[in-house]
């Protein structure tokens, strides 16, 4: 534990709540770290001499005569190449039994990149999953979450995306991971033989929830080190941001702040934006891409957490079980990658944008036909064809177990078009249809 001879030790707490303690102290900086009864804490409010600290691991058992030591610094992380391949907790301490890290000390939660120093993202990240590459292409420097119900295999999908993406580093920020999921990530990373390019900061369900608040900043401080200092492309995985936001609401509720929608703090948008906006493409070549998970309750995206997330991120990938084919698919309706237009038809084949749009439009026609059918109406010949098409489209392209390159995805799409529809029904620009239509 950090302790220096001249540091003043306080021994009297005047107030204790579930998440915070208050004491009289002087010369304390805002957001400074402290140790309260052996637990890490951070200054969240200063009123004259009264200092309120948020105790990350909770205040259970803390007595009024607890020892309080101020550390004179904000939360920090040591950064160096030694981070590679290692697992840490929310405070940046190793949890894999390995040695301490040597490196430069950096404050976490650092300032934002000057917008004029950014470069427009332009590098496609291929994942092999058509629901992503064909319909919602990822671009390096993007920030995008999976929206998924808790029972969907989002961590598995995210892990395979991470391993297939060609990036220099993968940084996992796990918040409220179950121990099983933590071990799952550890296993896939090890089995892929990719451990040396992976760094993990993990808070599991066994750890106190408020500790999670540090995870994104830890992961992103490490990411900035590799992206800025080493010009590397870094992929940051944040799962599950809903649990992060829950921790925010715990703290703000205990500090008696007026909650806004869904008992979330009024600052939720800014709090989440501060994290997601760390995604960036630097002119020097380094980049930070953020793929996150936001779990939904009962598919409700109007809840404050997914809603604010959607307003911040550059699209979202919606996982849904397609009962007809019995597989999880990337839902083409609610999913969106806002940066896709920077790469599709440019880094991919020219027909990509039109094929993508036409395929989804026809899929939408199928869903109208299905509604008709469910309401007991007769289907037209066109309706019937859209339904057949939708099933094949879902199976061959939308399912998350698809793993092919983009050119193949386009070719499959043209196959589906010509099998089920006429050129006019597909409605793609004549010049392109002439070139790619399959007879």
């Amino acid at each position, binding site marked *: 534990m950090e302790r220096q001879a001249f540091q003043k030790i306080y021994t009297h707490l005047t107030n204790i709540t579930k998440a915070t303690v208050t004491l009289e102290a002087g010369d304390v*900086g805002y*957001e400074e770290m402290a140790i309260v009864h052996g637990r890490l804490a951070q200054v969240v409010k200063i009123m004259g001499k009264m200092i309120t600290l948020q105790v990350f691991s909770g205040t259970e058992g803390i007595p009024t005569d607890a020892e309080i030591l101020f550390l004179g610094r904000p939360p920090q992380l040591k950064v160096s190449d030694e981070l590679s391949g290692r697992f840490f907790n929310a405070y940046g301490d190793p949890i894999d039994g390995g040695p301490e890290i040597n490196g430069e000390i950096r404050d976490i939660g*650092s300032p934002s990149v000057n917008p004029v120093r950014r470069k427009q993202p332009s590098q496609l990240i291929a994942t092999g999953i058509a629901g992503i590459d064909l319909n919602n292409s990822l671009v390096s420097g993007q920030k995008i979450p999976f929206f998924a119900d808790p029972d969907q295999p989002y961590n598995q999908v995210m892990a395979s995306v991470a391993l297939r993406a060609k990036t220099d580093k993968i940084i996992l920020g796990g918040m409220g991971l179950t121990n099983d999921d933590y071990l799952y990530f550890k296993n896939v990373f090890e089995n892929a033989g990719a451990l040396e390019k992976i760094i993990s900061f993990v808070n599991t369900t066994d750890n106190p929830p408020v500790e999670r608040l540090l995870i994104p900043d830890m992961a992103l401080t490490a990411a900035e080190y590799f992206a800025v200092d080493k010009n590397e492309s870094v992929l940051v995985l944040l799962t599950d941001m809903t649990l992060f936001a829950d921790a925010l609401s715990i703290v703000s509720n205990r500090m008696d702040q007026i909650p806004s929608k869904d008992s979330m703090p009024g600052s939720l948008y800014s709090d989440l934006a501060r994290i997601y906006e760390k995604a960036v493409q630097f002119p020097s070549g380094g980049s930070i891409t953020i793929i996150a998970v936001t779990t939904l309750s009962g598919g409700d995206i109007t809840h404050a957490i997914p*809603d604010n997330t959607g307003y911040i991120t550059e699209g979202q990938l919606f996982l849904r079980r397609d009962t007809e084919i019995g597989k999880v698919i990337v839902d083409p309706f609610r999913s*969106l990658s806002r940066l896709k237009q920077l790469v599709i038809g440019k880094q991919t084949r020219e027909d990509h944008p039109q094929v993508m749009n036409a395929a989804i439009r026809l899929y939408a026609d199928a869903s109208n036909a299905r509604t008709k059918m469910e309401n007991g109406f007769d289907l037209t010949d066109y309706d019937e064809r859209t339904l057949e098409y939708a099933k094949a489209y879902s199976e061959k392209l939308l399912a998350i177990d698809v793993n092919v390159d983009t050119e193949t995805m386009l070719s499959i799409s043209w196959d589906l078009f010509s099998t089920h529809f006429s050129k006019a029904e597909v409605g793609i620009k004549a010049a392109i249809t002439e070139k790619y239509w399959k007879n």
Partner: protein
Amino acid sequence: MERKNKTTGKVVGIVANLVIVETNGPVAQNEICFIHLGQENLMAEVIKIVGIKAYVQVFESTRGLKVGTSVTFEGHLLEVTLGPGILSKNYDGLQNDLDKMKGVFLTRGEYTDPLERDSLWNFSPIAKVGDTVYAGSWLGEVMENSIPHKIMVPFKLEKKYTVRSIVQAGTYTVDTTIATIKDDEGNEIAISMVQKWPVKMPIKAYDNKPRPFKLLETGVRCIDTLNPITEGGTGFIPGPFGTGKTVLQHAISKQAEADIVIIAACGERANEVVEIFTEFPELEDPRTGRKLIERTIIIANTSNMPVAAREASVYTAMTLAEYYRSMGLKILLMADSTSRWAQALREMSNRLEELPGPDAFPMDLSAVISNFYARAGFVYLPNGTTGSITFIGTVSPAGGNLKEPVTESTRKAARCFYGLSQARADSKRYPAIDAIESYSKYLEYPEVQTYLEKNLGKEWLGQVLQAKDILLRGKEAMEQINILGDDSVPLVFHDKYWKSELIDFIILQQDAFDKIDASCPMNRQQYMLTSVLKVANTEFKFDGFEEIGGFFKSIINIYKQMNYSEFQSEKFTQYESELNTLVSNKQVNE
């Protein structure tokens, strides 16, 4: 508010970016102060005063700040610096020039000069010695990019003055005295090309503000044709996330026939601003052939930048707009998103522990929004010329619910409503403006109707209303078809439905990413609407509903090709004649 001795104070409390300062002298509401944290000076604004305690919102992170830190009050409100050299700049919400900042990351306490003090400007005088002048009177002009930038009597000078001297035509720096003026008491004032103005006060150097009456072309069919906005008009674009607010605003800012476009990226994504930085220096203004960036000012206070400065950013943008409007220019101001500004107000109001209004927003939200929108408008300047600020803000309703406080307050303030619909966005019917729910109050203004009649012909308004009517009928027909089934409704229902689809696909939908379709000039819009309505007014002979769908799909397909082709090009006319053949084959012959 100028004081001989600056008031000072000491920090006594800190909660995030709300800091409480004990003062030793007079302070004013909204006065600016600096908190001296080590080498860094953190700028802040007074937002509440209780006894000797000033509550200030800091425009920076307060990390490391301690009780006892000294504070100096500046004796003025939050101000912008006005003068030539503002165009093409990238500012933050407090008008710091972002390009002048060192380093990749924003440094706390770094404030940069909004203008170039060393640049020389080619000045030519407008006023003569002996002229009577007032605040806002034009003394001379310099060419800023291609815009005649007027050098005016500072807006803060509230009296009547006489010009004592004015420099000859020549090149000068912005700080050079270009004129001296004298008030009735004989006090002489030296005027340079630079002046300052507090952002929360409207600049009112105009004679009067009539109701807007001129159409402002945006190149977006769904706006210009169906729900036009006017020069000096106000509009807002609410929509759930991802429905196309930003894409629509960017499209408008590229195409609109304005002299100057000011874009306030208020609490949104940094990458969207980078897109402008990247594209605007390349893209041409279709009217002048000059690069778009030359007529653009960007105020970037993105979501990860300090929240208090986010609130300031929209005011900074509006003040710059008012400055240029006073030069007799046509300004288009865009803010994306005004909800983030409202949220910044909410965060602060919560920290101040004020009694919250609906959804924890401050009670006066509605008034704040109305006052802001009221600063837009078309004006007659004292010298008989006109200027305008057209303002379009986006709104990001929580949960996509239009009944929330920011949307409702904005609805009261703005005259055009461009509601984006989730369903339309989901089915990629872009721009996802719900043409039935949306409105332009300007269409009801007699002066606007007269203008339309004069410029687009007597039939135009009738055509627009007919198009809206067809859309509505089509929607009703579709509902009936959904309830009763395809073959249980008369064929005419299908006919109605497909005619509305025709208008939807060809007039409403527009591909913002296609070179040609992205921008549609008014004469082309008129041509297309006339053509589409002709088809819609044609009686066809069909044997069954399936035939109707098939027929209209092929028509829509050809029309789409027309939208993608150069107007009146060979290809365009070729598609058109293909279309005519198709139509006349199916048409009922009298």
